[in-house]
């Protein structure tokens, strides 16, 4: 990076931290720290919801995904608007009426303490680990592309935001997310403009899309059907997107405290609902545009020489092994191909990846996540590279800060104040809330530091991890809302059995991960229903 890039990067990141600390005037009690005194207008709720969902991985991986697999990934978000409607009708009124701090608090009202604790615990485990991955994933990419030390990058990626998240709680998180999103959108819009601008003269936006379309990158809607019938292992198609995506979004926005905690900060029901519904309107087009950026980058590389592998550091390491000659040979063959010979390129790239795999055993040689940033570093002007790197940090900070805030709220409200010290003064509440926020920050950085090779596309790793727990947690909430005949003990046993089933199904690798949400939710309900007649009932229903 040039010194101009460093200046832009440092000023942007420092500016956000200062702004976050400036906005840290939280009232020193639980309501002020975790819910910003429930005083947020809908547009701040909207930006906070969006900033929490869109992590660094979203902005790094999505264009790369469109580059390699086309735009069909957008279908993954089709169930989201429908989920927003259901959450507004069912979840929001109940959460707001009960004035809960966490979504799991409601489960104690409806069932019992152990159900609340189990669900909160599942959330804390999955969110704690996935936040660690959210730190590690962009750090790995940046450190690899820019030659930075991965351990220090993890600390900056996950550590700097702790300053304002600990001091300012939910209020600082929401206000910084607002600013972060503005910068992220400006950065991505400039990148989009420049990709088209850098095309050869005479090639415009529509030409670039046509070129992408000719190469199968504009496959926005896919049916998942093959000559043999519906492909259940196909990750993204309209059915898995609408149905699986609906259950995933319902679980994520309705039962994941990192999102519930955002709309609980709203002034009232109306502001919460407006924020959620507006998210249902803007999310799919936003994701569409980010993916389109990937198609434009693909078209750009039809006129410019694309690297045979976008992760150069990995190639350099592979060339230190005995496979050097094989790799050089494939590179020469690749260079001799005509620019438009995509079949030939793809064949040699596959061979190249195979040799890389052999030379670096156990390493993930998928370079999807490196495509967009490689383009940024190689082709964008000085200063803008720094801005785009800052965009990655800010996107990461937005989602990590919300995760830390929600993890701390669950540990304080669902665990500490239930099992350790029930009666605390407002000052003590505030003090332990800050302590747990800091503690979760350190935990997530440690997860990032110890994270090893994570398999295929990083965005999927995070989603898969969520999907293992999300379906079951959603099932618990659906029973709470709609199946009053199922009581606490039957539900508790059912949730544990269902979770074991989900892990078995995932390991058997017979179905795409998006369907695990649907299966998990249905399993909890069905098993709970079957178990209820045989389990002793002891708790009244609180509605």
């Amino acid at each position, binding site marked *: 990076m040039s010194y101009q890039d460093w200046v832009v990067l440092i000023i942007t990141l420092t500016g956000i931290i200062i702004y976050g600390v400036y906005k840290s005037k939280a009232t020193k009690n639980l309501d002020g720290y975790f819910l910003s005194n429930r005083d947020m207008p809908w547009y701040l709720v909207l930006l906070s919801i969006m900033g929490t969902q869109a992590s660094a991985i979203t902005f790094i991986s999505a264009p790369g995904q469109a580059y390699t697999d086309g735009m069909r990934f957008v279908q993954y978000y089709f169930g989201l608007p429908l989920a*927003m409607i259901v959450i507004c009708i069912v979840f929001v009124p109940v959460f707001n009426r009960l004035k809960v701090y966490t979504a799991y608090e409601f489960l104690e009202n409806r069932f019992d303490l152990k159900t609340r604790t189990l669900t909160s615990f599942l959330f804390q485990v999955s969110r704690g680990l996935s936040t660690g991955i959210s730190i590690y994933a962009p750090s790995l990419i940046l450190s690899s592309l820019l030659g930075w030390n991965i351990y220090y990058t993890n600390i900056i990626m996950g550590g700097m935001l702790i300053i304002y998240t600990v001091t300012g709680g939910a209020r600082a998180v929401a206000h910084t997310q607002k600013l972060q999103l503005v910068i992220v959108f400006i950065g991505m819009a400039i990148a989009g403009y420049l990709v088209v601008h850098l095309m050869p003269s005479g090639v415009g936006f529509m030409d670039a899309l046509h070129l992408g379309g000719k190469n199968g990158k504009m496959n926005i809607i896919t049916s998942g059907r093959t000559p043999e019938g519906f492909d259940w292992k196909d990750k993204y198609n309209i059915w898995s997107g609408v149905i699986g995506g609906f259950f995933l979004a319902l679980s994520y926005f309705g039962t994941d405290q990192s999102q519930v905690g955002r709309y609980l900060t709203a002034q009232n029901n109306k502001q919460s609902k407006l924020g959620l519904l507006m998210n249902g309107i803007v999310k799919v087009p936003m994701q569409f545009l980010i993916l389109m950026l990937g198609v434009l980058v693909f078209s750009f590389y039809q006129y410019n020489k694309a690297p045979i592998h976008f992760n150069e550091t990995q190639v350099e390491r592979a060339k230190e092994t005995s496979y050097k000659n094989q790799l050089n040979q494939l590179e020469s063959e690749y260079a001799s191909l005509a620019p438009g010979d995509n079949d030939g390129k793809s064949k040699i790239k596959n061979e190249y990846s195979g040799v890389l795999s052999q030379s670096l055993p156990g390493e993930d040689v998928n370079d999807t996540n490196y495509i967009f940033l490689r383009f940024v570093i190689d082709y964008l002007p000085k200063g803008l590279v720094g801005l785009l790197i800052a965009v990655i940090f800010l996107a990461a900070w937005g989602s990590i800060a919300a995760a830390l805030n929600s993890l701390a709220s669950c540990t304080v409200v669902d665990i500490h104040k239930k099992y350790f010290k029930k009666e605390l003064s407002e000052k003590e509440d505030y003090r332990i809330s800050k302590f747990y926020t800091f503690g979760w920050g350190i935990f997530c950085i440690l997860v990032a530091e110890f994270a090893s090779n994570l398999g295929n596309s990083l965005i999927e790793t995070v989603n898969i991890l969520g999907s293992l727990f999300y379906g079951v947690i959603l099932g618990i909430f659906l029973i709470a809302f709609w199946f009053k005949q199922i009581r606490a003990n039957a539900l508790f046993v059912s949730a544990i059995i269902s979770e074991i089933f989900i892990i078995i199904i995932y390991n058997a690798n017979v179905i795409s991960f998006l369907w695990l949400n649907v299966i998990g939710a249905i399993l909890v309900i069905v098993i709970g229903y079957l178990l209820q007649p045989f389990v002793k009932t002891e708790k009244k229903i609180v509605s």
Partner: protein
Amino acid sequence: MQISKQDKEQNALEKKDTNWNLFYLVVFLFLVLQIIFYYFITKHFQ
């Protein structure tokens, strides 16, 4: 469905200043229109 009387009353009160059902319909229709639009884009650029 276990939505309490208070929630129903709260929803009814809010209906006075916001027609939520209309808003839900707009969100739903916007999704449907997008899917149709994306379908035609997919066909157009093939």
